[in-house]
């Protein structure tokens, strides 16, 4: 459920700090006026379009490692970013001063940069209704009202439950973030939003005889996050799951290496999150398709003309971009161009059905209206980013998927990941695997990797587990852009089964 409730307070300060414990309260009306002033300044300096975005964020990370507090960080940042079109060229500048002089400086510098930018420049924007709206993350327990000592205790307890004689590194972390955002455009948009995120995870690293193995929960690489209050962290059950995680890390030291070969794989929901992210999410970002990430993150094997015709995968493959998903890290009322949230198909029954777009790329392809533009802070320009990109569930259970395999491998929890610059050739490693024989799980295997070519791999998809197995995973480390930006993205996935997949390396 989305809740729209903002307090509009008049005060001298734009942001006030009531105490060290509570987050700073944003004076939305004053900030809106600041954004309006920036936009007016930009228009006065020659911009044909301008938007201003104020972001005030507080983030807290508590991390423990081997029963020591490793991180106890509390970070605040605030500022205004102004994006302009002058003569068809983009300009962007920012200022940390939430005051009229900061807004003016950012607007004027953005216009100056746009005027100086080389190129032919004829950028157009798809039309969007000028939105006047608000959005606020539903929160049951404010994470910044949770004492830091409670967070430390949770991490230390979870770590103790990871303990095993072969585990030499235990670690646990929890995070919380609150972000206030105000957006105003020269087309009349005026939007206020407040986002709250929480997350956590645990890891056990075992080492013996020159072998090192790791197990994580609920996800690798920092755990999982959701747009929610502290109730999300409490529901993770870090302490409850820790003994299994520690035992599996230790057991992996004695497991056989996963044999190489072409076989059937069943992939768990967490690894499917990254599979969707890397081989569907990034290639369908339309800015990549048009080459604007070519120098860094890469482009895409997809072409604009592929829309509606390219066979991306089998008929079991249904992918949806949904910025309305409750709890999703890519959920919002409006994106960073003021486009309202929505739900759109990206792949339907294996056919490419949509791209992730900005207003600029939507205008260029002549389809859609944007809705995927996000910036990671006030000091960065918005880019086309995944919002929440889901693999729609099929039917049955994970056990059903495994029962349908005579010989194969069950792969669980990401360990390594890499994909080429057009998002075709990928290779993933998982923390743990199990042999499947006669429809049942057999021995544990370590060091499993699998590789493929994106459309061939998705073409080999022959089953996706049903809604009961579908889980929402939130990751916070999606990199893109120069200067670099981290996006927070969610993926809903069920376990899935693929035939004829190269596991390990071709002999």
């Amino acid at each position, binding site marked *: 459920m989305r809740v729209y409730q903002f307090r509009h307070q008049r005060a001298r300060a734009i942001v006030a700090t009531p105490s060290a414990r509570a987050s700073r309260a944003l004076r939305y009306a004053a900030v809106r006026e600041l954004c309006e002033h920036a936009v007016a300044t930009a228009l006065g300096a020659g911009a044909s379009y301008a938007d201003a975005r104020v972001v005030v964020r507080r983030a807290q990370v508590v991390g423990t490692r081997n029963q020591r507090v490793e991180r106890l960080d509390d970070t605040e940042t605030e500022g205004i970013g102004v994006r302009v079109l002058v003569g068809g060229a983009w300009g962007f500048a920012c200022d940390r001063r939430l005051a009229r002089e900061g807004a003016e400086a950012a607007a004027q510098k*953005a216009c100056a*940069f746009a005027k100086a930018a080389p*190129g032919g420049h004829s950028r157009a924007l798809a039309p969007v209704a000028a939105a006047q709206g608000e959005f606020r993350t539903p929160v049951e327990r404010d994470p910044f009202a949770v004492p830091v000592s409670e967070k430390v205790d949770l991490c230390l307890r979870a770590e103790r439950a990871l303990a095993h004689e072969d585990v030499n590194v235990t670690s646990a972390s929890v995070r919380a973030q609150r972000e206030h955002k105000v957006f105003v455009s020269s087309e009349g948009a005026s939007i206020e939003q407040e986002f709250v995120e929480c997350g956590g995870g645990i890891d056990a690293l075992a080492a013996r005889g020159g072998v090192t193995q790791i197990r994580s929960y609920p996800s690798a690489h920092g755990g999982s996050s959701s747009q929610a209050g502290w109730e999300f962290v409490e529901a993770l059950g870090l302490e409850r799951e820790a003994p299994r995680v520690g035992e599996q890390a230790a057991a992996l030291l004695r497991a056989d290496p996963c044999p190489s070969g072409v076989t059937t794989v069943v992939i768990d929901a967490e690894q499917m999150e990254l599979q969707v992210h890397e081989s569907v999410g990034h290639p369908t970002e339309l800015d990549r398709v048009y080459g604007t990430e070519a120098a860094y993150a890469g482009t895409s094997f997809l072409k604009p003309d592929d829309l509606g015709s390219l066979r991306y995968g089998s008929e079991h493959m249904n992918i949806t971009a949904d910025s309305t998903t409750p709890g999703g890290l890519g959920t919002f009322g409006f994106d960073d161009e003021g486009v309202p949230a929505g739900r759109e198909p990206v792949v339907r029954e294996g056919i490419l059905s949509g791209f992730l777009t900005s207003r600029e790329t939507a205008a260029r392809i002549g389809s859609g209206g944007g809705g995927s533009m996000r910036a990671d802070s006030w000091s960065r320009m918005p880019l086309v980013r995944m919002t929440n990109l889901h693999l729609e569930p099929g039917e049955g259970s994970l056990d059903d998927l495994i029962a349908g395999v005579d010989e194969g491998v069950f792969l669980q929890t990401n360990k390594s990941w890499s994909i080429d610059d057009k998002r075709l050739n990928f290779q993933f490693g998982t923390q743990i695997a199990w042999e499947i024989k006669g429809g049942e799980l057999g021995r544990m295997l370590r060091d499993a990797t699998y590789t493929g070519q994106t459309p061939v791999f998705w073409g080999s998809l022959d089953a996706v587990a049903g809604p009961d197995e579908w889980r929402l995973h939130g990751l916070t480390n999606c990199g893109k852009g120069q200067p670099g930006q981290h996006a927070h993205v969610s993926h809903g996935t069920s376990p899935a089964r693929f035939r004829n997949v190269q596991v390990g390396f071709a002999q």
Partner: protein
Amino acid sequence: MTEALELAQRVLRAAEGDEALAVVQSERSGMARFASSEVHQPTLIENQVVEVQIVRDGRLGIATSNRTDDDGLRALAARAGEAADSAPPDLDFPGLAPPVDPPAVEGFDEETASLDAEDQARLASAAIDASELDLYGFFTSGVTEVALASSTGVAVSQEMTDAAVLALAAVEGASGYEERTGWRVGDVDPAEASRQAVEKAKLTRGAVELEPGSYAAVLEPPAFAELLAYFAYDAFSGLGVVEERSYAFDKLGSKVFDDKFSLADDALDPRGLAKAFDFEGTPKQRVELVEDGVLRGVVWDRPTAKRADGGQQTTGHAPPSSLRHWGPLAFALSVAPGDASSTEELAERVGDGIYVTRLHYLSIVDPREGIITGMTRDGTFRIRGGKIADPLMNLRFTARVPELLAELQGLTRDPVLINQNAYYDDRYPTGLLTPAVATARFDITGVGSGPGV
């Protein structure tokens, strides 16, 4: 005293604790990012971030903000104090660093510091205008300052400049890559980088596949730098050794690499992006990591050194606190040069193999074994008869870096500074000095997309 150091002292005065450390990072930068020969993401950034670390009864709390008025600093100190009060005592806390005069280093250039948006756009334009193919990449320059003040008497600051151009000349079916980085903009020639990227791109048309297998290879500096940086995260980190996930864990003092391979971390080298001190205030020093193929050392910060057996001392490699979970980091790797006059000479030594310009999307498969996977891109070629020959599709490699380093046919004479900054979060210029290298073993495990956009 610089403005940033004055601010650090103000932060320190606002802090209440047994010990306290204030860190200020300032940035003024511009990036003219271009695609299809047009600037499409021009970004100007001005920011100043203050961090305070407060220690109370052996408990450490950290808070960060970019509000530098008195109210902001008071709130910052209060948040750090609350964090410290909430932490359990750390019996291994090494205390804050003592004051030591940092070495004098190069790394600041007035001309680079004075570049504004128009200059950055002009230098991007110089790259674009020199390319007869569509050009993708950026020109960027920035001036950054790091200042530290502590209750133990540390009071240091360093102002740095950096400039970089990245040039990817690309059309459908062809692409070539070149980059230049330095702390003096005068050392960064956008047009020359662009021209070299174009020449490379022209050679990549008609790329063909390659059978997976183990090949001898020439790695240009950008490719070798990327591979080495990923390997170093665990292999040359004191924390990696303490936690037994480093390749170096049980091999320090052993000859494990080719005797032509020597590696140091040297933040004092004026050819690199020099640093005078780390984020604990410890002076930088040159650390020998590999000498003539023998693993000699890893890098340390104060907490990791205290945790280690054997009386380790910090080597001045504490990262920013936001990266402290990585442990100490070697931000200034420097590979000793060899005797080859050019990459063409390395290709002659290889005879039959592959030639790699640049790598893409690396991932650590096994840190203990030093196994890293990734792709080649923007200039991969077959070497036949000692000559750079037909272009290849982008190749997936899954390489055991120690095996790659175990047999080297040579390295070029002149190291190149390769940018290591992707400009996430707060700007902190880092680079890696390396020549090109020829190896007897580079394991190709698959074929991906072709060159070009």
